[in-house]
C-alpha cells in the first residue's frame, strides 16, 4: 500500500502544478475578468459606470490577494463551475460539452491499440529474435518513435486523399455530426476513431514493443525456462504461462508514462485531423485569448491524465505482488 500512497501523493502534486500553471495562464493577459466582461457588455450596447465595475470586482473577489483568488478558482473548478467563455459568451461548461468525453474516447482507444499491438508483437519479436518479422517490426518501431504524430497525421491525410480520395478527418460521418446520441452514432464513432487511435498510438506502441521484447528476452534465458522445456511442455504454452507473465510487470508500469504522452499528443493531432475533441477548442481559445476556456481545458486534460495514470498504477499493484507486499520494486 506504501507504493500506492506514494503514487497518490504524486497525483495530487501533479494536479497542484497543473492547476497553478492553468491559473497563471488565465491571469497572464493584461486586464482581468471584469475588464473583459465590461467589453462584452459594451459591445452589446450596455454602458458600465466605474462604480458598477468596482462593485463587480468586489463581487467576484478580484480585489483579494492572488492566492485567495487561486483557491476560490480551484474550489469552483472542482465543484463544476468553470467560469464564462468570452468568445462564445456562454458558460465554459456548455462550450466544452461532449468534447471532453470524445477526448477521453480517443485517448482510451489509443491506449487499447497500444496494448493490443505491443503485447503480441513484443512476444513474437522476442521468441523469434533476429527473424525477418523481428527486423521488420524493429524498423517500423523506430520510424514510429521518430516521426512526430502530427506529421504522421499530415502524411496519412495526404495519402488517403491522394490515393483513396477520402478525407480521414473528423470522428463522425456528416449525417451524425449534430445528431443526438444513439446506437447508430456510437457505431459511426467506432468506424472513425481507429485512424486517430493508430496515429496517436504509434510512438507508444514502438516504445512498448522494445520494452516487452527486452524483458522477455531476459526471461527466456533463465534456467527455469530450459528446465520446463526439458520436461516436454509445449513451447507456446510454456512461454505464455511463465516468462510472459513475469515480463508483463514493467510493461504495466510504463503505461503510466505513455498515457500523458498520448493525451498530450491528441491535442495537436486533433487540430490536424479536425476532431471534435478539446484540442482544436484549446487552440482557438488560446489564439483568441479566451482564458477561462483555455485554463479549464488545460486543467481538465491534467485531471484526466492524473486519473488515467492512477488507474494504471492500480492495475500494476494488482498484477505485481512484489509491489503489493514490499511497497517498491
Amino acid at each position, binding site marked *: 500500500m506504501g507504493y500506492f500512497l506514494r503514487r497518490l*501523493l*504524486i*497525483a495530487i*502534486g*501533479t494536479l497542484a*502544478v*497543473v492547476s497553478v*500553471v*492553468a491559473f497563471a*495562464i488565465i491571469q*497572464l*493577459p493584461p486586464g482581468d475578468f471584469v475588464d473583459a466582461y465590461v467589453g462584452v457588455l459594451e459591445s452589446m450596447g450596455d454602458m458600465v459606470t466605474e462604480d458598477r465595475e468596482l462593485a463587480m470586482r468586489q463581487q467576484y473577489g478580484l480585489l483579494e490577494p492572488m492566492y485567495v483568488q487561486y483557491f476560490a478558482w480551484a474550489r469552483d473548478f472542482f465543484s463544476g463551475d468553470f467560469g464564462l467563455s468570452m468568445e462564445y459568451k456562454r458558460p465554459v461548461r456548455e462550450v466544452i460539452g461532449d468534447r471532453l468525453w470524445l477526448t477521453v474516447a480517443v485517448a482510451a482507444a489509443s491506449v487499447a491499440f497500444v496494448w493490443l499491438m505491443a503485447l503480441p508483437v513484443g512476444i513474437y519479436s522476442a521468441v523469434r529474435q533476429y527473424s525477418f518479422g523481428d527486423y521488420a517490426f524493429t524498423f517500423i518501431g*523506430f*520510424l514510429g*518513435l*521518430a*516521426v*512526430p504524430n*502530427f*506529421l504522421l497525421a*499530415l*502524411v496519412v*491525410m*495526404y495519402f488517403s*486523399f*491522394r490515393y483513396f480520395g477520402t*478525407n480521414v*478527418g473528423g470522428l463522425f460521418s456528416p449525417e451524425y455530426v449534430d445528431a443526438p446520441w444513439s446506437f447508430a452514432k456510437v457505431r459511426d464513432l467506432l468506424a472513425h476513431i481507429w485512424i486517430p487511435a493508430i496515429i496517436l498510438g504509434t510512438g507508444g506502441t514502438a516504445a512498448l514493443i522494445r520494452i516487452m521484447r527486452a524483458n522477455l528476452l531476459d526471461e527466456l534465458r533463465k534456467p527455469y525456462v530450459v528446465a520446463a522445456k526439458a520436461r516436454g511442455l509445449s513451447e507456446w504454452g510454456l512461454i505464455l504461462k511463465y516468462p510472459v507473465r513475469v515480463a508483463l510487470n514493467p510493461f504495466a508500469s510504463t503505461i*503510466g*508514462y505513455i498515457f*500523458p*504522452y498520448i*493525451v*498530450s*499528443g491528441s*491535442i*495537436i493531432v486533433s*487540430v*490536424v485531423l*479536425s476532431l471534435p475533441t478539446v484540442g482544436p477548442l*484549446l*487552440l482557438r481559445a*488560446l*489564439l483568441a*485569448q479566451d482564458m477561462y476556456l*483555455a*485554463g479549464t*481545458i*488545460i486543467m481538465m*486534460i*491534467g485531471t484526466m*491524465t*492524473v486519473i488515467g*495514470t492512477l488507474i494504471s498504477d492500480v492495475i500494476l499493484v494488482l498484477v505485481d505482488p512484489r509491489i503489493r507486499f514490499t511497497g517498491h520494486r
Partner: protein
Amino acid sequence: MTVRPETVEELPAATEMGVVEERFEVATPRQLIWWRFRRHRLAVASGIILIGFYLAAMFAPFLATSEPTKAEAQRSLMPPMPIHWFDDSGFNPHVFGTAGKRDPKTFKRVYVEDPNKKYEIHFFARGFAYKLFWLIPSNIHLIGIEGARTDEALFLLGTDVQGRDVYSRLLFATQVSMSIGLVGVMISLTLGVVLGGISGFFGGFVDTVIQRVIEILRSIPTIPLWMGLAASLPREWSVLQIYFAITVLVSIFGWTELARVVRGRFLALREEDFVTAARLSGASRPRTIFRHMVPSFSSHIIAASTLAIPEMIIAETALSFLGLGLRPPAVSYGVMLQSAQNIQTVATTPWLMVAAVPVIVAVLAFNFLGDGLRDAADPYSQ
C-alpha cells in the same frame, strides 16, 4: 577484453597478437569510446548527416537562391521547377522561364514553361547580397542562373502562398530549428546536471524531494501546457525574444531525463574506490566532483543530451505549426508547415509539406546517433 578485427586491420605491422593487445591496454578511454562508436555504422552515418545539417545551416545564405522573405504575389504557389539536364549541345543544366495564368474555370494560378526563355544554371553565380556568419559580406551563391535574376526565376522546390522560394526558406529554417535544439539542450543540461548532481551526491531528503518533482513533471501532459504558456508571450516581443522564450519553455520539461542519468551515475560512482581515495587525500568537494567524478561520466551525459535534442526540435516544430511558437518573419520548419495545416493545401499543393522531411530525418539521425553514443559511452563494460 577481446580484440576487435578493426583494430588489427589498422595496424599493418601488428601481426602478432601481443602488440595489438598492448595497444588496446594503453588506449585512453576516449580512444576506446571512439573505436566502439565507429562499429555502429548507422550511428556514424547519422553523425555525418547531422554535420551536413549544421553545415547547411551555417552556409544557408550561400546555398540559398533567394532571400527568405522576398515575396511576390505574381509567383504565388508555383510548383517545384524541373531542371532540364541536357539540351542539343549535351550536358547543360537549365530551367525555362514560366508564365503564370489564371485558369478560367477553377481560378487557380497555373504556370506554363516558356521554351523561348532558357536560363542556364551556373555554379558560384552572383545573387542577392548577404553576410556570411553575420560578418563577411558577399553576393556569391553556390548556384545561380544566367540571363535573369536568380531570385526571380529559379524556384527549385516551388513557392508558397506569398510567392517566397521554398528551397531558400528551408535552408534558413534549418538555422533556426536546428539551433533551438542545441540552445535548448544546453539549458536542460545545466538544470539536469545541477539538480541531478545534487540529488545523487547528497542523497537523503534532498534526493527524495527532487525525485518526486521529476516524477510530477514527467506525468504532466506537456503540449497543452506549452501551448498555454507560449500563447501568453507578449505579442510585441521581438523575434529574438520569442526565440529564447520558446527555447526556455521547451527545455523546462526536457531536463528530467538528463537529471535521472546524472543522478544514476553519481549514485554508482559515490562508492567507488577512486572517489574515496580522492576524499581521503583531502580533495575539496568541488574538486572531487569536477576533477574525479564528472570526467568518468561525461560520455553518458553527451549521449543523453543527444537523445534530448530531437524532442526539443519536435516541440518547437509542433508549437510553431500551431501558430503559437515562432512568428513570421522568423522562419523555422514549424512556421513553414503551418501553411500545410488543412486538407486543401495538403491535397493541392503538397510541396508545402516538404519541411516535414528534414524534421523526420534530423530526429531519426539524432536518435540513432544518441543510441550509438550510449552504447559506446562505457567502454569498459561488455
